[in-house]
């Protein structure tokens, strides 16, 4: 493989990992809260990113990414945990209800007239942090190999390819029951939030980025156990009365 191709492929693969995290957050938040404010937030994130990248150029690597990871990670973590808990209680109470439910009936979907700042902030932060990480990868790989053009090509291609795959998977995401979708997005935000916040503190994760699937598995297991416990509690209480009378508090 030539030097250009090597830099292109290496940058593409490294940037794709960051792009997957970015697209996961944008698609998850958009599907749960609504698209207008999510797209606005993602667009604003790309705009700020473009200004920073064009303005700083090679000096980009001087940005203290640690504090940014800590702030963004901690915010995603505390917000993700709220959806994590709500998702557990909703799935425990309603099962996979909402499979064909009207999206407009979902309490998490923004129905106000203005901007849904929650969706905006989540998408903005996801795009800005992950976009900066892609930019760091491009600058460091490109500068080390003396082939910035190939590195830029690899980084941009990774974001575009992962973005197209995310859009293609949108239909599948939208078919996920609403109660389960909130749980899934909550677990994903909690996973990325835990990972980034601790990286920002300076903790080294065992296995580096490979720790993300491990965290995800631990949180999925936590959700499964909590749902099982809650559903058992509901069915035990429901036995003498009839199920609908007992589950009304969850609605």
């Amino acid at each position, binding site marked *: 493989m030539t030097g250009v191709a090597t830099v292109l492929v290496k940058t593409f693969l490294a940037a794709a990992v960051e792009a997957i995290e970015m697209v996961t957050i944008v698609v998850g938040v958009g599907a749960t809260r609504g698209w207008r404010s999510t797209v606005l937030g993602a667009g604003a994130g790309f705009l700020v990113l473009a200004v920073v990248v064009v303005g700083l150029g090679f000096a980009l690597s001087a940005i203290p990414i640690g504090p940014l990871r*800590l702030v963004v990670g*901690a*915010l995603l*973590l*505390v*917000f993700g*945990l*709220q959806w*994590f*808990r*709500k998702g*557990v*209680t*909703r799935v425990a*109470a309603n099962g996979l209800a909402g499979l064909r439910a009207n999206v407009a009936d979902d309490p998490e979907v923004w129905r106000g007239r203005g901007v849904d*700042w*929650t969706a905006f*902030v989540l998408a903005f932060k996801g795009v800005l942090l992950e976009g900066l990480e892609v930019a760091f990868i491009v600058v460091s790989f490109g500068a080390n190999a003396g082939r910035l053009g190939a590195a830029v090509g690899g980084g941009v291609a990774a974001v575009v390819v992962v973005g197209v795959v995310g859009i293609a998977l949108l239909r599948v995401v939208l078919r996920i029951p609403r109660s389960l979708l909130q749980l899934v997005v909550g677990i994903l935000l*909690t996973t990325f939030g*835990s990972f980034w*916040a*601790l990286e920002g*503190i*300076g*903790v*080294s*994760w*065992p296995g580096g980025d490979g*720790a993300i699937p491990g*965290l995800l598995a*631990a*949180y999925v297991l*936590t*959700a499964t156990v*909590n749902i099982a416990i*809650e559903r058992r509690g509901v069915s035990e209480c429901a036995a003498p009365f009839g199920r609908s009378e007992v589950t009304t*508090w*969850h609605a």
Partner: protein
Amino acid sequence: MARVISWPLAFARFWYRFIVGDDWTVAAAVALGLVATAVLNRRSVNAWWLVPLVVIVMVRVSVLRAKPVPGRRDGPRP
């Protein structure tokens, strides 16, 4: 004028809801977990497990707090 005064309030309310939500104990536990991890990290202890542990415990605690208890009004909404 009223708009000028209400904007900072709305801004503060948004961030309060974003960070604290309806269960302050979760945000407090996460903050304590992050501070403890930072302190341990400064003492060369790689406590990567602490915050995930806090998350696992607090999900259970928050689910329990979300259950309606007669007479209690401070719990999170289910």
